[in-house]
């Protein structure tokens, strides 16, 4: 990760669609850097403009304003021919897989190679290698209609890898798949990122996908990037309303408890999931009320937060907070959960 300039730089990008019912501002003044070798997530609610943004990355959609630099080239300065060429080093996979239904699996993987002008024999050899990598060698002669969703996405991944791209753009690549298949596909993408060093951009509306695979994430909300940062940080300390909505979809306000003193315990990944609250209760021989909990286990480390109601005795409350701090946790007193 990190060879100086980012692989993808989005600069002042805006997109307006002109429709019969007037102009629609979909993206406004987006700035974003995606570094070489990272797995970068872009998350937002449905209709937030994620697909539009990812389509701007390879200029399938031309930005109305601003531009995208890919590998130090200003895409808006390229001729149509040069753009076709650059797209060959950007793979893309989709929610609906988008395989050619009248071509078998092998020929589907050969397709981008044909476009790149690779000779037929060479293309087939390369395609077979790729099918091996995605564990589908035995399906080379099958047609897409004979494959499961997960298998189709593997073919699409093999196809996206054919021309040795620098980046793979994934637009809701797992949204049509069941949880188990999703895990498999994400593991494959992770593996590709690790082994081949290919940068991966993950577009999704699902927090679980970001959590599973991304290192950094941008939250896109009402036409803007609301927040960008490392996944762990955004998960523990979402600073914007949009981020909070995504991280705590249930809503973290529990208003009828606000009369008593409460404290928020933040798990920022530095501690493991030891039963810290249970130990505290044993130590103080005092019960506490857990009024909100949203924690996740990422790579065996604890992320998230728990809000507990402290005992009425002020001194015990202080001692409990000190106890939690001594366990390396961030603790803060809260009276209205904002």
């Amino acid at each position, binding site marked *: 990760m990190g060879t100086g300039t980012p692989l993808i730089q989005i600069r002042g990008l805006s997109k307006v669609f002109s429709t019969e019912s007037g102009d629609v501002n979909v993206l406004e003044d987006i700035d974003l850097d995606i570094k070489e070798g990272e797995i970068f997530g872009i998350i937002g609610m449905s209709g937030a403009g994620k697909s539009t943004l990812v389509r701007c990355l390879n200029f399938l959609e031309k930005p109305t304003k601003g531009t995208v630099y890919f590998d130090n080239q200003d895409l808006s300065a390229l001729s149509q021919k040069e753009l*076709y060429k650059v797209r060959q080093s950007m793979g893309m996979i989709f929610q*609906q897989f988008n395989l050619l239904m*009248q071509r078998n699996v092998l020929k589907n993987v050969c*397709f*981008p190679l044909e476009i790149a002008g690779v000779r037929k024999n060479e293309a087939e050899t390369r395609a077979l290698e790729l099918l091996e990598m995605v564990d589908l060698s035995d399906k080379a002669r099958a047609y*897409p209609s004979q494959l499961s969703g997960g298998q189709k996405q593997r073919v699409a991944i093999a196809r996206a890898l054919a021309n040795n791209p620098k980046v793979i753009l994934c637009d809701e690549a797992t949204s049509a798949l069941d949880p188990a298949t999703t895990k498999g596909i994400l593991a494959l993408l992770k593996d590709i990122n690790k082994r081949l060093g290919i940068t991966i951009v993950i577009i999704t509306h699902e927090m679980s996908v970001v959590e599973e695979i991304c290192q950094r994430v941008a939250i896109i909300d009402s036409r803007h990037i609301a927040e960008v940062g490392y996944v762990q940080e955004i998960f523990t300390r979402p600073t914007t309303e949009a981020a909070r909505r995504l991280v705590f979809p249930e809503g973290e306000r529990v208003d009828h408890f606000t009369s008593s003193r409460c404290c928020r315990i933040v798990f920022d990944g530095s501690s493991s999931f030891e039963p810290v609250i249970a130990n505290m209760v044993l130590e103080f021989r005092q019960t506490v009320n857990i009024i909100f909990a949203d924690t996740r286990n990422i790579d065996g480390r604890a992320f998230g937060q728990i809000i507990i109601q402290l005992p009425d005795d002020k001194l015990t409350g202080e001692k409990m907070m000190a106890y939690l701090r001594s366990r390396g946790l961030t603790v803060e007193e809260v009276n209205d959960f904002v």
Partner: protein
Amino acid sequence: MFDPATLEMIGKGFLESLYMTLVSSALAYLIGLPLGIVLVVTDKDGLKPAPGVNSVLGVIINLLRSMPFLILCITVIPLTRLITGTSLGPTATIVPLVIGAAPFIARMVESSLKEVDKGVVEAAQSMGASPFEIIWKVLLPEARPSLILGAAISVTTILGYSAMTGFVGGGGLGDIAIRYGYYRYQTGIMLVTVALLVIIVQVLQEIGIRLARLGDKRK
């Protein structure tokens, strides 16, 4: 039932009908297929949107399609004479048949190509395919089963038109049916020629359906 001369005439009519239909179909496709592609490509969400070209072409096609075929036959007689030297007989009939069928074929091709999943086109674009490559390697192959079915419908429609040209001395089975069946009340000859027309339609239709199914990998 029929004397040898009648049989020979029907046989000749049969061959003439096939000749007119097949040659006209081939020529009409030569014009209609590219036109259909242009309609799709210049559509507002096509590969190269060109609203002007698209609507001008659309209007011309609709005009030709809404013109009753017999009127068209008569209107183009000068052109027919220019090209074939006559306005009678099977070869002369090919001219109005092509002009009448090409717009129809353009629309058939257009609707077949529009059935192709937009996502697949987008995927090809993301790989850096040019519009030409997308037409040649994505749209046409992916629409193949539908194009073949469309061709079966077009060819049988052209056969129907060719029979109609019997009214203006176009030759073929339709000509015989009109001259003998309609003008001279020889119902037997008319029934035989009509039966032959029905059989040709059935056979062509069946061939089309089988070819389409054979090449379709979606199932």
